[in-house]
């Protein structure tokens, strides 16, 4: 078990703090690390894809769980896997796809761990069908503050506190996850353009139920009549008979293929992504997309994880880093969504990674983010003048529409708004106070938002 005192940030590379980074290689080492983490506590960390300060712990311990990465058992008939929390979704895909199984939920990157996926209760393009990740977790083993290991079954209060609990109930050691059967490793994808926000919402409302996966890239720099124009991509796992005969894809239908470009350089000057460059990118991206195309075959990596093709893409924002803002507002709150999109567009926030999605039913996690309605996610360079105040104003809109922002992406929310956004917060605090009276598990996020 190694331990180094190092600066730690989230994927957005803002607000670095220093912690002892401990990398347990066995459960015993993990138990010892939790017992010895000292006055400033500890927090588990996976692959560091949370954008903000969720997996940081200033002056304390950060438990890098990626050293615990064994896949224990695969039930290839029933479609479940039991693995360590440090296993990445990438690894699961490598192992499971050839057996005809896929992860039940994948976010926009496959470089997240199973533990992180549960801790943030992540969602994907299939949320309207499949819900969030924790829906598919049958049980998990949780290392709690007393140093004990508990088996936590789906549906129990501790499970619901842990799903979306941002690692604050304990360290997830293993999980049993129900899988999605697939015939091939390819996707059939339909693409269409939407000319403005209302057109986009109408298309998503009318057609989402026909697809397992659906998402829209939205051009937040477009103004006037084009405000909210978007490219909708929706798809399903391709059935075997959709692959053309005689091709390599048909001969090896379950091969998991990815491609990676060289990583972004470690130093990129700030300001590269500005209104001009992002405006040009967005214009090209929109024009490049077909007005309507159906049945295109794409790799899983192309459809779900385009950004994983550029390792360390987060560096392109330069030293100042970036802020990711994601919120959800319920069905019936379309006006709030329109107002927010208009404000972002009028403000000319240079965002090239903005996506809009329609969520389905919520799951039971107390701090789980998804709720039925509309979710918008966007990246913004952190050094944009006045950004802090602007996002505060958006928070007010979101909160007054009964919506919430996503903690796994947050790095700047005003703590006073949290309880309104997460009505089960009081239950969460009460459970933590009982389970972890000394406050062993703590993160910068928890300190900032008084979780």
């Amino acid at each position, binding site marked *: 078990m190694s331990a180094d*005192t190092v*600066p730690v940030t989230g994927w957005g590379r803002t*607000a670095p703090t*220093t912690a002892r980074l401990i990398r347990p290689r066995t459960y015993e080492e993990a138990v010892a690390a939790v017992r010895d983490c000292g006055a400033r506590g500890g927090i588990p960390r996976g692959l560091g894809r949370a954008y*903000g300060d969720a997996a940081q712990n200033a002056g304390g311990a950060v438990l890098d769980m990626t050293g615990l990465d064994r896949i224990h058992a695969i039930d290839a008939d029933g479609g479940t896997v039991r693995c360590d929390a440090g296993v990445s979704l990438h690894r699961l895909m490598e192992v499971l796809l050839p057996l005809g199984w896929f992860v039940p939920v994948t976010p926009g990157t496959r470089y997240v761990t199973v533990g992180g996926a549960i801790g943030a209760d992540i969602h994907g393009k299939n949320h309207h069908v499949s819900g969030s990740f924790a829906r598919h977790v049958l049980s998990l083993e949780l290392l709690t503050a007393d140093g004990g290991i508990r088996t936590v079954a789906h549906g129990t209060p501790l499970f619901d506190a842990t799903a979306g609990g941002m690692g604050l109930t304990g360290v997830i050691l293993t999980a049993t996850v129900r899988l999605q059967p697939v015939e091939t490793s390819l996707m059939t994808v339909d693409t269409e353009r939407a000319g403005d926000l209302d057109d986009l919402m109408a298309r998503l409302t009318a057609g989402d139920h026909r697809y397992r996966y659906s998402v829209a890239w939205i051009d937040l720099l477009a103004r006037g009549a084009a405000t909210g124009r978007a490219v909708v991509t929706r798809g399903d796992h391709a059935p075997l008979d959709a692959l053309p005969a005689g091709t390599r894809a048909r001969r090896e239908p379950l091969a998991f293929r990815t491609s990676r470009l060289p990583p972004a350089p470690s130093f990129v000057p700030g300001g590269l992504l500005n209104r001009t460059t992002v405006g040009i990118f967005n214009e090209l991206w929109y024009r490049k997309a077909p007005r309507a195309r159906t049945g295109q075959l794409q790799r899983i990596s192309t459809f779900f994880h385009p950004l994983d093709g550029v390792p360390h893409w987060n560096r392109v924002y330069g030293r100042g880093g970036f802020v990711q803002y994601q919120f959800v507002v319920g069905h019936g709150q379309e006006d709030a969504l329109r107002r927010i999109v208009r404000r972002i567009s009028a403000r000319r926030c240079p965002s090239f990674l903005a996506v809009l999605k329609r969520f389905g039913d919520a799951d039971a996690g107390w701090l789980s983010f998804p709720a039925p309605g509309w979710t918008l996610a966007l990246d913004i360079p*952190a*050094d944009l003048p006045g950004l802090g105040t602007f996002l505060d104003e958006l928070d007010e809109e979101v909160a007054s529409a009964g919506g919430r922002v996503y903690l796994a992406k947050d790095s700047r929310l005003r703590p006073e708004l949290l309880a309104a956004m997460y009505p089960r917060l009081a239950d969460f605090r009460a459970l933590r106070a009982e389970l972890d009276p000394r406050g062993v598990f703590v993160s*910068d996020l928890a300190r900032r938002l008084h979780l």
Partner: protein
Amino acid sequence: MKDAFGTPQSLLVLGGTSEIALATARRLIARRTRTVWLAGRPSPALDGAAERLRGLGAEVHTVDFDALDPDSHESALGKVFAEGDVDMVLLAFGILGDQAHDERDPAGAVRVAQTNYTGAVSAGLITARSLQAQGHGSLVVLSSVAGERARRANFIYGSSKAGLDAFAQGLGDALHGTGVHVMVVRPGFVRSRMTADLEEAPFATTPEAVASAIELGLRRRSETVWVPGALRVVMSALRHLPRAVFRRLPV
């Protein structure tokens, strides 16, 4: 904790009646700051400052702190950190002295040096250690352009700020990689009580402008901030002037 924009939730001001510090506190309270500690010698002015900040919605405490009594710093500042994390320490105390008078009365000059330099070394080291233990935080040190090159007209004050500035830079390097950020702020002539009797110098600025520059510096995690920014170039030129020329300048 600071947010993604470097805005602190808790602030400790050393020199709780400093106009620059209070302007900074007002600005930060308008953003995220909810807890403020004003450290200074007990006085109606300190209580009044605390009351005004409370009016803005912050929870404000005052702490007895005397820069000239380094022996008391440990316990006075230790109490603050024992209450919880301090995201930002603003080292803002300092006195201008009276150059002409202090040249005749070395005891007065020593008081300037002890307040501005010795007191700051003590308080700076003590707060830096606490920040390092919590693994995060910014130590913002109010230096001055006067420390960049000592002038005939105020070299006693200038030399104390030169010492403070060098100390803070070195401290910043020592703390690099510990999660603690040290920022040296070098304002030019600031229109305030402290300078009310002086003739205004070129590039004069205001406490509010310095506060705004500090907020920006926090966001950028800057190590040095000049206010106004043009002074960086001006002082760089002045620093390289030959002594014989510099001495004759009407500054």
